[in-house]
């Protein structure tokens, strides 16, 4: 309890000063277990839930969480959802659980979580809470023996850009902003109270090998890789569609500029003729002419998100392929002996 009091004080005193950048997310084993259980039970449906905890200096502590019910039609149950949240927070407060929202968690399928909805949810949360984080859990990787838990945050530069609503090429070039700068991944630390740790050690004494190891040594990763490849191909298709949009825009733009040049030439010759005839020269610009209407440049947000996803898939494939190498060499060595 003493550490709680100290961190409360710290939290209050840091309010005036500028908050230091978030460096680590500290999760309690309890929250991790709850997230795993909830995501796994409802796989393959995607589920979300709320994270509760404390924001202390450069560490964001997540001490508890609760799941959101799956909503079928959003219209009727909008108010219900808010009620549920309030109810849960009130009840948890009564048993002395921190009922400070620090973010939310969601499950994902094979790591394809970069969508516009995610960004919108982030912006919604950011309005109310100074620092929030999103935890992504991938239940499909549990078969491979990997705990796929990631903490994400939108980078500040991205948030400013998004608020301005401007994703044109010029703005992005000014800020030197690339697709890698949208999301920031924050390292996760897991902590457990001593009591819980004592219980767990007693329940399952330190075995030399754990089940996770057995899973990792399995060499049948083909279904995972196949799914990854499928998603990758789909994303590449989306990416090429986006690029085609850009090409179309550029083509239109250059055509429009050519048209403008031609019209300008015509006006100039006309003006020279008029001047020689002693009449008023016509203005060189004509805003009512449709060829001068500026064409809106398509937003690059989609393409950035898709790029992020593709990169994610590539990374996953790399990781699994690397593991497969080690496994294959291992079996080779065993066989020779």
């Amino acid at each position, binding site marked *: 309890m003493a550490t709680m009091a100290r961190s409360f004080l710290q939290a209050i005193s840091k309010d005036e000063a500028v908050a230091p950048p978030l460096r680590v997310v500290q999760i309690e084993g309890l929250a991790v277990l709850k997230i795993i259980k909830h995501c796994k039970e409802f796989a393959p449906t995607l589920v979300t839930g709320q994270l509760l905890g404390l924001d202390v200096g450069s560490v964001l502590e997540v001490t508890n969480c609760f799941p959101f019910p799956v909503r079928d039609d959003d219209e009727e149950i909008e108010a219900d959802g808010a009620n549920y949240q309030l109810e849960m927070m009130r009840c948890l407060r009564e048993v002395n659980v921190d009922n400070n929202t620090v973010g939310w968690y969601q499950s994902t399928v094979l790591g394809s979580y970069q969508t516009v909805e995610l960004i919108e949810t982030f912006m919604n949360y950011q309005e109310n809470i100074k620092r929030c984080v999103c935890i992504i859990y991938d239940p499909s990787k549990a078969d491979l023996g990997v705990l796929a838990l990631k903490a994400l945050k939108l980078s500040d530069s991205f948030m400013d850009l998004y608020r301005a609503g401007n994703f044109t090429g010029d703005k992005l070039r000014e800020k030197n902003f690339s697709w890698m700068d949208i999301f920031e991944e924050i390292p996760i630390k897991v902590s457990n109270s001593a009591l819980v740790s004592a219980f767990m050690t007693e329940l399952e004494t330190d075995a030399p090998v754990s089940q996770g190891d057995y899973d990792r040594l399995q060499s049948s990763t083909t279904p995972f890789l196949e799914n990854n490849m499928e998603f990758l191909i789909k994303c590449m298709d989306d990416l090429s569609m986006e690029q085609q949009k850009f090409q179309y825009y550029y083509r239109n*733009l250059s055509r429009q500029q050519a048209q403008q040049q031609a019209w300008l030439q015509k006006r100039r010759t006309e003006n020279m003729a008029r001047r020689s005839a002693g009449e008023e020269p016509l203005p060189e610009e004509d805003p009512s002419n449709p060829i001068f209407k500026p064409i809106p440049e398509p937003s690059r947000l989609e393409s950035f998100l898709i790029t992020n996803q593709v990169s994610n898939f590539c990374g996953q494939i790399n990781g699994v392929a690397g593991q497969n190498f080690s496994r294959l060499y291992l079996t080779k060595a065993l066989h020779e002996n």
Partner: protein
Amino acid sequence: MAATAANEHTVLQFAAPSSATTTPILTARIHPLVIFNVCDCFVRRPDSAERVIGTLLGSILPDGTVDIRNSYAVPHNESSDQVAVDIDYHHNMLASHLKVNPKEIIVGWYSTGLGVNGGSALIHDFYAREVTNPIHLTVDTGFTNGVGAIKAFVSSNLSLGDRQLAAQFQEVPVDLRMVEAERVGYDVLKATAVDKLPNDMEGMELTMERLLTLINDVYKYVDSVVEGRTPPDTNIGRFIADAVASLPKLPPQVFDNLVNDSLQDQLLLLYLSSITRTQLSLAEKLNTAAQML
């Protein structure tokens, strides 16, 4: 008054006769999340309370096993002769939990501390009104006897003729199991603090090291048996023989081909993903660097 008796085999005799459809509860299966919840609530209890109670959620399987999957704490007040439980809170939390997972129903209640006492019997009565034959779980957070004991009880009423004499708490065997996904996070859940979650390759490295240690141990054991230092144990010998025999017997040519093919597949995938990455950076340069006029 309540009495505790730890007698697994007579549980059938004391089956609750209230309705013909209730199957006698044979074992309780607990998910580690419940233990975590209980410990967390215990650590956060208000200073005046000596122990924490709460509701257990789960389901009853057709073979009589109670599968306890989730739990939440319920505020209560306990003095030497009275027990007050916040029933509204209990119902509110139950409704909220049911919204998320309607299959998890009340199966009983838990309390910290070792053994049952008078207050527990009253609380157990209250829960018996909510569900037939509730199960009572005690989690010994005080570690009396140097052991963190987790015990489960079912109660039955002892009556003489029409008068109710006492409630007898019968102990039920407890089975603690972990679902696969939780096993994955197992290392992470045991220690008091883990600095960072291992990623793919680091996890692989850890596993390899462990495997190597295991093989070394077995090697040393076999050596010492051969030299006569340790008495041979036929069971272990059989296990080792089984393990060695489980390697598939393929002619070396076929095996090499197999391994090489898989290696080539993996290399192909790596190449593909590197190409995709290069393509991405090219595309991005083209998109944002293109200037008109």
